[in-house]
């Protein structure tokens, strides 16, 4: 998805082995390889720790947001025009906005929609992407041709623009966001899965399964997909981040969700003028912080998964 940056892993080109690799890769039992020295080990360990922290942060966010009905200090959208809007205090941890709404409550309820969109988009686009990508990679031919021609169409136009038009058409609701973002996001996962399937397809064990008379469906489901699980999982997590960013961006621009719905994008849209004064800056800070925290946590999770699935990778 392009609305998040090409947040795709900065995958290096085909990796050339190191000097020591060349020698040691040939040594049975000496893999994985001399590149993995102490520093790398430490780095990798750090990465995993970050991934663990990321999971915890995500869990806290999910519980806080989806449990807002029980956990939020004030009712949703409750306005209190009697109090003067002010910054963080003991009563209002995240402060209050000009309508007198408690920002912590709003941020929690807002996260509900933002996270729901992120998770749903990741789930749907992964399902569709894996299905189409596996078919295209395994069967090739017109399915494959069709997939690449179709996805080529979407590479030449900014996705934010497509998303903008599509949301105006389908209605400015969270479900419309899920449909459109999944409709754009599956293509990326399909490409990744297709590539993986193409590379796994030629391996000996697939040949063996085929020779043993396994059906195509069985080969795809039992043999090929389990070998692609790493990239699929990594890209599913990245899809969460992309969807959360896409929703908040469009909503911020005033083209997405609208009150009385609330999302981090809406809170930021409402707070837009707050940046011109230092005393109201907190209105941008808290929803923005949640947004960055979510995306950071999801990205670290993706990193941890990548390392876990492919211990030789360096990213």
């Amino acid at each position, binding site marked *: 998805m392009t609305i998040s*940056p090409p947040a795709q892993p*900065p995958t*290096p080109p085909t990796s050339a082995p190191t*000097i020591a690799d060349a020698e040691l890769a040939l040594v049975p039992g000496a893999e994985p390889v001399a590149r993995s020295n102490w520093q790398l080990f430490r780095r990798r360990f750090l990465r995993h720790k970050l991934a663990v922290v990321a999971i915890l942060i995500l869990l806290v966010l999910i519980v806080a947001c989806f449990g807002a009905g029980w956990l939020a200090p004030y009712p949703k959208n409750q306005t209190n025009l009697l109090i003067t809007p002010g910054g963080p205090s003991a009563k209002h941890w995240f402060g209050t906005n000009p309508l007198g709404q408690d920002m912590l409550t709003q941020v929690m309820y807002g996260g509900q929609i933002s996270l729901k969109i992120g998770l749903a988009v990741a789930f749907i686009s992964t399902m569709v992407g894996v299905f189409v990508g596996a078919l295209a990679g395994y069967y090739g031919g017109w399915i494959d041709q069709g997939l690449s021609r179709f996805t080529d169409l979407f590479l030449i*136009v900014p996705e934010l623009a497509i998303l903008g038009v599509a949301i105006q*058409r389908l209605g400015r609701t969270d479900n419309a966001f899920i449909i459109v973002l999944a409709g754009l996001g599956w293509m990326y996962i399909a490409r990744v899965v297709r590539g993986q399937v193409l590379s796994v397809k030629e391996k000996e064990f697939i040949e063996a399964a085929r020779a043993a008379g396994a059906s195509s469906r069985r080969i795809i489901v039992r043999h090929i997909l389990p070998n692609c699980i790493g990239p699929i999982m990594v890209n599913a997590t990245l899809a969460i981040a992309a969807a959360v960013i896409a929703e908040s961006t469009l909503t911020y621009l005033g083209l997405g969700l609208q009150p009385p719905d609330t999302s981090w994008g809406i809170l930021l849209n409402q707070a837009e003028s707050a940046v011109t004064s230092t005393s109201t800056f907190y209105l941008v800070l808290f929803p923005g912080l949640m947004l960055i925290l979510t995306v950071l946590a999801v990205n670290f999770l993706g990193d941890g998964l990548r390392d876990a699935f492919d211990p030789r990778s360096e990213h």
Partner: protein
Amino acid sequence: MLIYILRRIVYSVPVLVVASFLVFWGVRTTYDPTAKYRASKDGARIVAQKRKELGLDRPVFTQWWTWFNRFLHGNLGVSDRTNDHVWKMLTRAMWPSLQLMFWGSVFALALAIGVGVYSAVKQYSIGDYAFTGISYVGIAMPTFLFGLLAIALLVTLPVTQFHLSEPIFFSVGLHSQGQSGLNLDYLRHLALPVLTLTVQSVAVWSRFQRASMLDVLNADYVRTARAKGVPQRTVIFRHAFRNALIPLVTVVALDSAFLIGGLVITEQIFSISGMGRLFLEALQFGDVPVLLAWFLVVAVFVIVFNLIADMLYGVLDPRIRVR
């Protein structure tokens, strides 16, 4: 090489045509330019008449064909919103956007390559770790949020903190009233939009450049150069650098559409009347002729950008040239 480029151009024509139909279908069916008449007295009759006038009663494909034909003849129609010629509006909006894109690309490439090469050569140094941390935040930072933070921290905060009469960096437009040309005023206006536009690209590209540089530094031919007694600096810049640029070119080309998406956000936040703002205004108003032309112009731009990348590829990599 020339044949290769020609082939690419020929290949991109059907993609453009199909894309333009899809965009036409999508945009046309989203907005109803006759909606404003519906509520009036005798609405049904007027709407039917208007639909006939505008050709909306015919199949979408026919409508598209008519529009496309006019487009090919250079007639982009008239804006529903301002009654201006669409072509004029586009050319007017193009100039600020091109400035942003140009300075943005130059800035982003220079910074990303510099940081990437440094981090690879000094792998695991403090600098490498610092850049890694910064790039993680950069990748996670939505463009619009960075824009807001930049205004809050780099425009508002210094003004209130140091009681300045005017901010160090400006957050509206590309020039102050009455100013033009390449001067300090321009730089003070340009700094934040360019930073906002490119922050994610710099983060992603520098990570990519680091990875590809590391890869190349471990390549056999770099070892050969060392075995010849070539000094480290020459090894890095003569042997590794150019090879490490080749994969980056592909990534940058693929990101050109993404940069235009960023342009929409950046121009909105910094009140720059370019292509991005034109798109938002057209989208909000349902200005179909402008939207249609906008999509096509952007698609052509992305294709051209990719073509340039392909040519650059050929310059950098002699193996491509023979094809």
